[in-house]
C-alpha cells in the first residue's frame, strides 16, 4: 500500500546527544581497515588543522540511521521495514565529526514516492553539535520493495 503523502515535510524531534568517543572512532576505522592517522592520533589530526581525532566520513551514518528509526518505525507511517533496502546515501559536511562532539540529529521526511509498487522514502538528517552549530547533513533513500513480485 502506498505511503501517506501527508507525511512529506514532517520533522521528528531531535535525538538525545550522542557523544563521539576516541575509541569508537578507532574501532570504526579498524573495521573498515583505514589506517589514516587522523582517526587515531590526535597529534596527526592537529597537524591537519583539527582540534582532535576526526571520524571517517561515513562514521556519522550510525547516528543518523538510528535517528531515522523514528521515521522508519513510525506506526502511523506504516513502512514495511522487512522489505526495505538502502537506495542512495549522501553526506554534505560543514566540518568533519570529531572526538568529543555531542551530536543531535533532526530527521525530516523529504519525499515519498511510489514507483512500480515500491515505496521510496527520502529522509534528511541534520546533525548539530552541542553549540547548535551544523556539522553534517545526511540524505538517506530507502526503498520498500513491493510486497508481491509482478
Amino acid at each position, binding site marked *: 500500500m502506498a505511503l501517506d503523502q501527508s507525511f512529506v515535510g514532517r520533522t521528528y524531534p531531535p535525538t538525545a546527544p550522542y557523544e563521539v568517543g576516541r575509541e569508537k572512532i578507532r*574501532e*570504526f576505522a*579498524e*573495521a*573498515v*581497515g*583505514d589506517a*589514516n592517522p*587522523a*582517526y587515531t592520533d590526535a597529534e596527526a589530526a592537529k597537524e*591537519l*588543522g*583539527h582540534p582532535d581525532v*576526526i571520524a*571517517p*566520513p*561515513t562514521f556519522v*551514518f*550510525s547516528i543518523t*540511521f*538510528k535517528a531515522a528509526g523514528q521515521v522508519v518505525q513510525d506506526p502511523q507511517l506504516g513502512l514495511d521495514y*522487512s522489505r526495505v*533496502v*538502502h*537506495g*542512495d*546515501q*549522501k*553526506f*554534505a*559536511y560543514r*566540518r*568533519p565529526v570529531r572526538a568529543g562532539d555531542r551530536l543531535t540529529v533532526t530527521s525530516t521526511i523529504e519525499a515519498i514516492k511510489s514507483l512500480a509498487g515500491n515505496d521510496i522514502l527520502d529522509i534528511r538528517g541534520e546533525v548539530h553539535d552541542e553549540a547548535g552549530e551544523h556539522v553534517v547533513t545526511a*540524505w538517506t533513500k530507502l526503498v520498500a520493495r513491493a510486497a508481491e513480485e509482478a
Partner: protein
Amino acid sequence: MTAKISYSDVEVGTELPAQTFPVTRATLVQYAGASGDFNPIHWNEKFAKEVGLPDVIAHGMFTMAEAIRVVTDWAGDPGAIVEYGVRFTKPVVVPNDDQGPRSRSPARSRPSSTTTRSAWT
C-alpha cells in the same frame, strides 16, 4: 583543513589511483560490531537466502566507507571531504571462504556510483 594535494596539482579528468579492498565474512562481523548494524543478511547465510539473496551480502555502508578511501588516501586529510554520495545498485555478495569477493574501487568501475567533492587549499 589542509589536504596534502594542492589545488594547482589537480586538473579536471585526473584519475585517482585505483585500490582493491578485500572483504570476508570476518570483515562483515567486525563492521557490524563497529557500526551497530546487525541486520542478519550481513552474517547469516540461512537468513539471507530466506529473503531471496544469493548469499550473505556486505553492508552497503561498508562499501561506501571503502570507496571514499580512494579520495581520502589521495588527499591526505579526510576532513577535506565536503560532499560524498553513492547509489547502491548491486549487492556485494560475500561467500563463506577466506577469499570473498574483491570490492574494487577505482574512479570508473565499481558496484555503486559515487560523487565526491573535496575542499582544497
